[in-house]
Structure formats: structure tokens, C-alpha cells
């Protein structure tokens, strides 16, 4: 199959069982393994040993509507340190869903300017492995 460029418009961020609206951009959580030095005196090339997968963050930029229940749910999750289940569903012809758990660690409103809209950056730390499935069906109840 020939690889196809796909623009990000149409990507869905599900938090719990509902889609977050007015999302401007998402930085999905990277997957990074710990690199452990295993160099021996006789080695001629440094090749690290691979350790456990590191924690990673997901960053969501959104227009912020404090009256929106789904936006407010992120505030409540921050307050209660609740573990959320997130899904990023891609807009490909055959969608790919990355599902993982995360906790809200930062709620950072942007500067309020006269002609600017209310926006904020939400940062979550991933607390579980990423499960990737093809298709947009949700396993979230």
C-alpha cells in the first residue's frame, strides 16, 4: 500500500467517552525508552541498553469555554488528580486510535488580549501504556 499524507483536521480527542471540542492542536505523548549505559572497556561503539518506557506528556491547546462541561471536566480532573482515559482518533481513511490513561498536571491559560479569544494549554502526564487499534470504535464505556 502506498503511504498517504494526511492532514490533522478531523482528529478527535476523546476524554472519557466524549470528544473535546474547540481543540486547536494536540501534541501526542511520545514513547521514549530509558537508555542505560552498558559500555564495556573492550567496546568500540557505544550502544546503550534499553530500559523501561519513560513517562511522557500530552499537550492540548484549546479555545477555552468555562461553561462547557467537557472543558470543565479537565479542571475537575486536575483538582481531584483523577486518572482519565484518553483516545486520539486519527482522521485517516482507516482511523487509528491511540488509547492511554493520563492525569492533568497543568492548566495554563493564555494571555488575554483585547481581540484575542480565551485559550489554554492543558498538559497531561501519561500513566499507562499506549494501546493502538485500527478503527474509531471506542472501548471507553
Amino acid at each position: 500500500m502506498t503511504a498517504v499524507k494526511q492532514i490533522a483536521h478531523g482528529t478527535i480527542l476523546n476524554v472519557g467517552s466524549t470528544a473535546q471540542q474547540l481543540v486547536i492542536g494536540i501534541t501526542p505523548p511520545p514513547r521514549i525508552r530509558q537508555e542505560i549505559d552498558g559500555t564495556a572497556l573492550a567496546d568500540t561503539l557505544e550502544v546503550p541498553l534499553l530500559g523501561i518506557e519513560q513517562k511522557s506528556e500530552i499537550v492540548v491547546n484549546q479555545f477555552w469555554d468555562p461553561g462547557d462541561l467537557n472543558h470543565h471536566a479537565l479542571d475537575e480532573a486536575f483538582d481531584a488528580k483523577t486518572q482519565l482515559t484518553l483516545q486520539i482518533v486519527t482522521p485517516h481513511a482507516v482511523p487509528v486510535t491511540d488509547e492511554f490513561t493520563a492525569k492533568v498536571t497543568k492548566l495554563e491559560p493564555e494571555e488575554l488580549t483585547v481581540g484575542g479569544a480565551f485559550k489554554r494549554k492543558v498538559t497531561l502526564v501519561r500513566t499507562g501504556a499506549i494501546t493502538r487499534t485500527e478503527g474509531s470504535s471506542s472501548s471507553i464505556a
Partner: protein
Amino acid sequence: MSQFASDFRSFLLDQTAIAAAVGTHIHVGSVPQPTAPPYIWIGRAGVSSERTLDQAQGTAPDEERWDLEVWSDDVGEVQDIAELIRALDCAKGAFGDGTIQLLIVEDHADDYVPKGNFGDEGYDLAAFQIQILMYSAGTSSSSP
């Protein structure tokens, strides 16, 4: 005339002092001939949006930018009407049949090329850029 243009013209005509100064002589895109001064010409300069991942096709732009020109054969009259236009800065709420969240009035730069008069009558001009943010068309709106 687009719904936005119609609402913009209605908004200007709803301003009592402006309507008293120019009557119904607020023209969108072209000025009928003959038109006695003073008059106001408006024309769309552009639109822009900061889009979201879930944005639906056909969503109204976040920002409309319009050129507004005040023309008259009396420089004092131009300046008087220009003050009425400047007084619209930070208007919000009703906008013709629709609503807006904010209107911003800026003087155009000196190198602005006016479009509302190509004659040689020696008219005076005051030119503005009008930013209109978060316009929503009214539910009863329809293009004339």
C-alpha cells in the same frame, strides 16, 4: 450582497449620528453614480480564522477585516463623520440582524490606496480598517 455586508451596512445605518450625516449613502463595493457627498464606502479586505481540529465546513471566520472610507467635498464634514466612525471602536452586540463580539476601528496607513472614488472632484477622504470579531448571523437573516 453577502449577509455580512448587509448586516454591516445595517449596523452603520443604525447609528443615529452616522445616518443623520450620510443618510442612506453607505455603499458596499461600488458607489452608484451620481451620488452626492458625503457618503461612506465599505469593502471587504479579508477574513481570517484560527481553526480547530473539529471545525465544521462553512464555519464563519473569526475575524472580518473591512476597509471603510468617508468621502465628502467638505474636509470638516469628513472629519466630523470620521469621529463618528472612531466612536464605534469596541462596539459589541447587535450587528444588523446578527451579533458580534467586538469591533475595532483603526486609521489606515498613509500609503493606503482608496477604492471608493476614482473621480477627479477633489473630494476629501478619511479611511479606516475595521476589524469585526466573532460575527454570528441572525437566525432570521437572509441576503437581499
